[in-house]
């Protein structure tokens, strides 16, 4: 009876699908049919959700704070853009994987830099890498189109069958399918001995190392995986919008991502997805109310959330739903937000 077997068994036990998760994905798919005029913003949310998922892998599960995750997003975006523009790989799914792989290589290479040093150093190194890539993209503007971005990208139909249209329908279902597949993979990874060891590392790297977990190797592995996901998110971006310019590397993108995870919560995989929905909608609402100063309200939301604390905020927000559910479901039923996946 091996330890690994035991741990594996324990991990898989927690991996059984809860009915609410099934409902979640059905609802997500349903939105594609319920709101045919809102494909564009839903695609935007889906891409952001995938990107947030990739950051959740390193932030929520491994505890690496990264302010430059947009670096991999950008590599994926430009990768897909260049592949399509120069006709090297025209089939979108293959191009997606290729661009994702390019980002993975970069992720692997930079992971060695990220495992060294303390929090602040890591923050700076990740930020520096993203800015460096942005500067490089600008410098080699003959390849990347510089500030103007890649022009004239045309994306071939997905799998040769589904063409991208002006309404964004194909884009949405394509993005949603990609998100779902990658989510399944992430779920499998997280609910495994590997995933458990990551959580151990996040909680206390010293102790994890003391019990025999190869800390650095695990961090490199998860960082590389996360960069793959981020690269795919970037490639999706270019494929669904037919655009790729310098702002795919921008600091604002990485900062917005942090906000998404703050809203949704880290460490239980759904945080990125929920956060993406809420954040994007908040942004829409704010910019409709005030086209120029919406950033103020987003900043305010961030400040309030951090000050008040997400747990307390959720308790307040769910106060009324809790009352209702307790009435119907008996004394023990309660709506709770898992802070982490540890329950």
């Amino acid at each position, binding site marked *: 009876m091996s330890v690994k077997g035991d741990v594996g068994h324990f991990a898989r036990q927690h991996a059984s699908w809860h009915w609410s998760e099934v409902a979640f994905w059905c609802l997500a798919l349903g939105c594609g049919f319920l709101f045919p005029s809102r494909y564009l913003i839903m695609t935007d949310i889906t891409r952001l959700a995938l990107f947030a998922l990739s950051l959740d892998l390193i932030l929520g599960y491994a505890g690496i704070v990264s302010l430059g995750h947009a670096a991999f997003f950008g590599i994926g975006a430009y990768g897909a853009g260049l592949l399509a523009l120069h006709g090297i790989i025209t089939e979108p799914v293959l191009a997606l994987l290729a661009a994702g792989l390019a980002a993975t290589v970069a992720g692997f290479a930079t992971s060695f830099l990220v495992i060294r040093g303390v929090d602040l150093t890591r923050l700076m190194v990740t930020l520096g890498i993203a800015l460096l890539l942005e500067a490089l993209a600008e410098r080699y503007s003959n390849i990347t189109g510089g500030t103007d971005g890649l022009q004239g990208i045309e994306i071939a139909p997905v799998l040769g069958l589904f063409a991208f249209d002006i309404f964004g329908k194909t884009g949405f279902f394509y993005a949603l399918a990609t998100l779902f597949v990658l989510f399944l993979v992430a779920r499998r990874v997280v609910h495994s001995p590997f995933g458990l060891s990551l959580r151990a590392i996040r909680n206390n790297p010293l102790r994890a190392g003391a019990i025999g977990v190869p800390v650095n190797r695990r961090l490199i592995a998860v960082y590389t995986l996360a960069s793959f996901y981020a690269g795919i998110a970037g490639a999706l971006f270019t494929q669904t919008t037919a655009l790729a310019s310098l702002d795919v590397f921008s600091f604002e993108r990485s900062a917005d991502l942090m906000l998404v995870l703050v809203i949704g919560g880290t460490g239980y995989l759904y945080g990125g997805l929920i956060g993406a929905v809420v954040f994007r909608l908040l942004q829409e609402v704010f910019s409709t109310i005030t086209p120029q100063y919406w*950033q103020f309200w987003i900043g305010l939301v961030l400040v309030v959330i951090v000050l008040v604390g997400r747990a307390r905020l959720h308790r307040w927000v769910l106060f009324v739903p809790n009352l209702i559910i307790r009435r119907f479901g008996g004394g023990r039923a309660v709506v709770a937000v898992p802070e982490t996946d540890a329950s």
Partner: protein
Amino acid sequence: MDARLKAGHDDPSLWLDSSMTSILTNLFDGVAYGMLLFVLACGLAVTLGLMNLVNLAHGAFAMAGGYVCAVLVNQHGWPFFAGLPLAFVTSAVVGAALERALYRHLYTRSHLDQVLFTIGLVFMSVAAVDYFMGSSRVFINLPPALEGQFDVFGVGVGRYRLMIIVICGALTALLQLILARTRFGSRLRAAVDDPRVASGLGINVPQVFAFTFAFGCGLAGLGGALSAEILGLDPYFPLKFMIYFLIVVTVGGSSSITGPFLASLLLGIGDVAGKYYVPKMGPFVIYSIMIVILIWRPNGLFGRTAAR
């Protein structure tokens, strides 16, 4: 050509050959830029070293000081050198108020929370300033004595940049003096070294910090007013220059002020030289240097691992 050669002997501006003058000019410009960065960023370094607080909104205090000075000088006719101290005071007061009201709650929180909170503050300040002051760049009306250059052996010495070097140099010397020679300075150094032992010795660490934070913000405000001419003052200032401040702090380390001082000089000279000699590579140079230094010395060039 002959006339020029002959004139060269008598004209001091032609004694140095052109590559020498450009090296000296770039050095001068780089030093001015570096010292300005130091004044802007040293508050951030001390904050980080003292209270382990990552304050990405530091640029917002600089921006506040800059705009206060601009409004006083442009719209109310104050002289430039009177506007500078007021920029300092305003930012210091705002800093003190925010510290008591908001920042205090974040000392015990994780770096991530601090980063997020301060990013939120930055967004708010950027939008607020945009609303009240408009999006275009603001210029401060300078006294004529500060405009233009004068020639020193063919090296163009900008008056404004010279003033910056003088003011910032004086400030640095003052700071070093305070740290090394005053009682407050030694309390501050003790608190940075080890806050627990320091408070065990009876030093009121929170008070030291409140004062230092306010002072750091004031310095940032002063730096902001000075940088309106060189770096450009607009509502996006905190976002544009945050990375520079962070580089100074991480490369320089946060356990003293000599570290950030040298790091700022390095950054300033590197940036100017990079843009002059390899203009296509511009920012590329700075980020590469930073990454290389951080790999080699994860705690910064002059930092020590914090004793906590």
